[in-house]
């Protein structure tokens, strides 16, 4: 029995769904960021699978760019988070409902 291509795609869909559910449910901004990373990884897995299925290196190049953008996104996101949480030390996004500092 060989590994079917659709198994990878279904695993990617499942991983994306778990990440989306976590993003909707969790209240800790750091954990929400981690859920975004889960979703990005699900997309990466799908890209690599399609790259192999279609015999095209382009999918892997896109994954490379996704990695770079994810790194930049985490740096800026955590920077914003640090500067917010310094003023109001609570690990709950519901407390950050007002734009006024």
């Amino acid at each position, binding site marked *: 029995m060989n590994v079917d291509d659709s*198994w990878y795609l279904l695993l990617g869909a499942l991983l994306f769904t778990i990440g989306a559910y976590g993003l909707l449910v969790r209240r800790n901004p*750091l954990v929400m960021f981690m859920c975004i990373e*889960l979703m990005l990884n699900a997309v990466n897995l799908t890209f690599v699978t399609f790259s192999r299925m*279609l*015999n095209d290196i382009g999918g*892997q190049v896109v994954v490379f760019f996704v990695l770079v953008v994810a790194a930049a996104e985490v*740096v800026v996101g955590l920077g914003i988070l640090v500067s917010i949480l310094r003023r109001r030390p609570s690990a*709950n996004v519901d407390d950050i409902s007002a734009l006024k500092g």
Partner: protein
Amino acid sequence: MDVLVFFIAAAIVLTGAMGVVMARNPVHAALMLVMTLFGIAVLFVLQEAHFLAAVQVVVYAGAIVVLFLFVIMLLGVDVAEDVTVEPLVGQRTAALVISMGTLGLLSALVIRAAQLSLGMPSGTQPLDGEGGNLVQLARVLFTDYLFAFEATSVLLVIAVVGAVVLSNRTSSGASQ
């Protein structure tokens, strides 16, 4: 053999993902995230994307998760969150329904797309060309995607400058 590796890696990935969502302590969630990322790296190796597997371990599991742990420790928010209380009534149920809908649509989409696109000619370069995975990736990256590659360097510089500006307490205090 491949099937066995796939199922073990898939189990690791899904367990880690569930752990991220369920873990009450953010430190545990970060460690579960490492588990998921390693599982994904194994799946990359299984699909012969060797360079991406290495980058996945170095950049994601190495740099990004360590950054997460640094921020958790720096802010001291490693207190357990009470996940049993639902802050908004019916929110979890609604989230579950939306997630299941997403799962159904995504599954149908990827399977259908796989059926439709199979056998289409390669847009950039074929995977089974000359050279290893790294040589092929580099050749495409520095020819077809050169502009995008340079743009990411600008993006990284902007991210570094942004992070420095955001975390610089004294200058932001002085400007106010």
